[in-house]
């Protein structure tokens, strides 16, 4: 595999026809799935070229999801961080409020696009994998709306730590399958969803929850999530008369981050920070889920990307306080942007995320999901080092309702 040696004149033209971003991405699937992957790609290309498809998706975003989501100047967080910064320092912090979307996270943006695609393809059933349960809830929601049977694969460990979302999915009419294999988390749920798909290719559409998996999923999910960045661009120009200086987003598989970053990739002055889950610390062997910081390239779940793996190429389990971030891989476009140096990938630990979770709740009256709490943890580190005139946008990609039980337990509260 060739590493990209030269910088492209645009960062926004990928992937190539083979689904590659530099040497990353591709279609590493068993032959049984290959014809289906090609069918999804054809159908997506046709849908993209059809204005009625876009119009229907945007109608749903406006009237069902509640888009555009606001761009909120987080004044109290900004003031709090300035209070500890040197004079003249302390960037101005904005939140892109995708936690206000129907179902409470950014996942619904790409789910609605994919369910419309599945309808176009004549598929009769939907399957999905989920970690935190947000993607599962979003998929179950769209399936209720479109009257499609829905099966969600979820690691048994995650079923136990995300009970409220499991119940939500059931209320919405979905079947939740607890996956016992491996460490019974997101990676294993995705294995099981792929296995189920192989056995049910005729009538089933697999709705993937992040910018990973075989081509065309990484590009398709990115395209749908890019609504986040496009809105942010327009909203920031309206609020401040210019583009933001720094974008910050949490990285699980990388969909909320790709959605925020992609429309800005060719704006050379916009700095981008992807925050991986540092867990107990990236210097531990399996105590984190920072694939770009602590992993190396390999092939899993249909794409070549950075993976947490041992020296023999066996995949390691990631750890994070957040069930939505403990995936041992990352979307291939992030792997490419990482090697090019266009996006900086950093990390925040469980403890830092937990502290940010509480701070945000008290200062802004917004209980964030544990995933964006990682992004906020990094904002807390960098904002005080930047001049007051610097504009930061952090993707508040989910609300914390699903996490209050986990956090309560960690804080020693009993219900």
């Amino acid at each position: 595999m060739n590493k990209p040696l030269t910088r492209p004149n645009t960062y926004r033209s990928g992937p190539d026809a083979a689904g590659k971003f530099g040497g990353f991405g591709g279609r590493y699937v068993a032959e049984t799935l290959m014809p289906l992957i090609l069918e999804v790609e054809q159908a997506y290309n046709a849908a993209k070229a059809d204005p009625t498809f876009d119009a229907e998706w945007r109608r749903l975003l406006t009237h069902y999801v509640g888009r555009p989501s606001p761009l909120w100047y987080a004044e109290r967080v900004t003031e709090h961080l300035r209070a500890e910064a040197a004079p003249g320092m302390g960037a101005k912090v904005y939140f892109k409020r995708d936690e206000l979307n129907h179902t409470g996270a950014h996942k619904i943006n790409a789910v609605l696009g994919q369910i419309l695609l599945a309808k176009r393809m004549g598929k009769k059933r939907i399957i999905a994998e989920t970690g935190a349960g947000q993607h599962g809830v979003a998929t179950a929601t769209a399936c209720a709306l479109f009257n499609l049977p829905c099966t969600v694969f979820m690691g048994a460990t995650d079923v136990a730590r995300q009970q409220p979302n499991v119940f939500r999915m059931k209320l919405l009419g979905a079947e939740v399958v607890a996956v016992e294999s491996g460490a019974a988390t997101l990676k294993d749920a995705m294995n099981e969803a792929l296995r189920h798909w192989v056995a049910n290719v005729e009538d089933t559409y697999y709705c993937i929850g992040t910018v990973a998996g075989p081509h065309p999923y990484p590009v398709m999910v990115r395209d749908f999530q890019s609504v986040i960045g496009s809105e942010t661009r327009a909203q920031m120009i309206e609020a401040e008369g210019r583009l933001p200086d720094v974008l910050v987003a949490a990285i699980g598989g990388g969909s909320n981050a790709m959605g925020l970053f992609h429309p800005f990739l060719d704006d050379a002055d916009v700095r981008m920070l992807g925050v991986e889950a540092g867990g107990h610390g990236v210097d531990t062997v399996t105590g984190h889920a920072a694939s770009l910081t602590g992993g190396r390239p390999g092939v899993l779940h249909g794409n070549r990307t950075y993976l947490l793996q041992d020296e023999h190429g066996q995949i390691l389990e990631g750890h994070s306080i957040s069930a939505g971030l403990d995936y041992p891989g990352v979307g291939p476009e992030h792997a490419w942007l990482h090697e090019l140096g266009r996006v900086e990938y950093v990390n925040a630990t469980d403890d830092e995320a937990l502290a940010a979770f509480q701070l945000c709740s008290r200062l802004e009256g917004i209980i964030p999901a544990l995933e964006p709490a990682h992004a906020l943890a990094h904002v807390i580190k960098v904002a005080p080092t930047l001049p007051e005139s610097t504009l930061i946008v952090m993707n508040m990609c989910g609300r914390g309702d699903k996490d209050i039980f986990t956090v309560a337990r960690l804080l020693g509260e009993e219900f």
Partner: protein
Amino acid sequence: MSATATESRPVAATGSRIAARFAALRAEGRGALIPFLEAYDPDRATSMEILRGMPGAGADLIEIGVPFTDPMADGPIIQLAGQRGLKAGATLGGTLEMVREFRAGDSETPVILMGYLNPVLSYGAERFVADAAAVGVDGLIVVDMPPEEAEVLAPHAQAAGLDIIRLVAPTTDAARLPVVLNASSGFVYYVAITGITGTRSADPEALEAAIPRIRAHTDLPICIGFGVRTPEQAGHAARVSDGAVVASALIETMSRTLDGEGRATPGTAQAMLDQVRALAAAVRGAR
């Protein structure tokens, strides 16, 4: 990337044990039995005993599974076999060592490794292919490496004289079939079911329709796997094609002999080899 798919490839690597074995079977007028074992399952010594015993029990070719943490195309039986293998210390390098030891006593039975791409990439594709050829591996099945992604491995394999055996599935349509076949050598592995290993049985009528469809496009031997479980099914598969691959049914039998901790008992290797014998009898009596 797609260039590899359309380039013409030799029918089998020159001097290949695989080609020689299929030619001999054709002369005998029968199909092949290809039993499967997972490396290091349940431990290295037992899997070595099974591997060594297979030719004597009637294996015409042998497929060795290389354990991987995330076997996307495998059902619960082979998933568990892989987990036991990994727990027993299986690595790709260790699997090659098993083949080297096997070759010291058997220079004729073709050995095919079946596994997933990531351990191969981690080992280094070029180095792996060279080492595999050196220890006496004859062919590779890399489940998650379709022809479109084969560039990383196929040229090295071809140079080293290793066959890349490809899966053809019921979902492989007429437009795609030549792409897959042109990127295959050694033999073609027809996946008898739309699904993962060990979950359903193949439908005999569907096989009788599918094999001639593939035959029309290739001179390579065609073998049937995924869903071949009983001696009757193996006999039928070997009759309508050129061979039957049996995996999950053998591993299921073997795993029933394990103790509560998943460890081998004195009868473990024998149980699996007895079943190979029964399958071989059915395949040999099939024509």
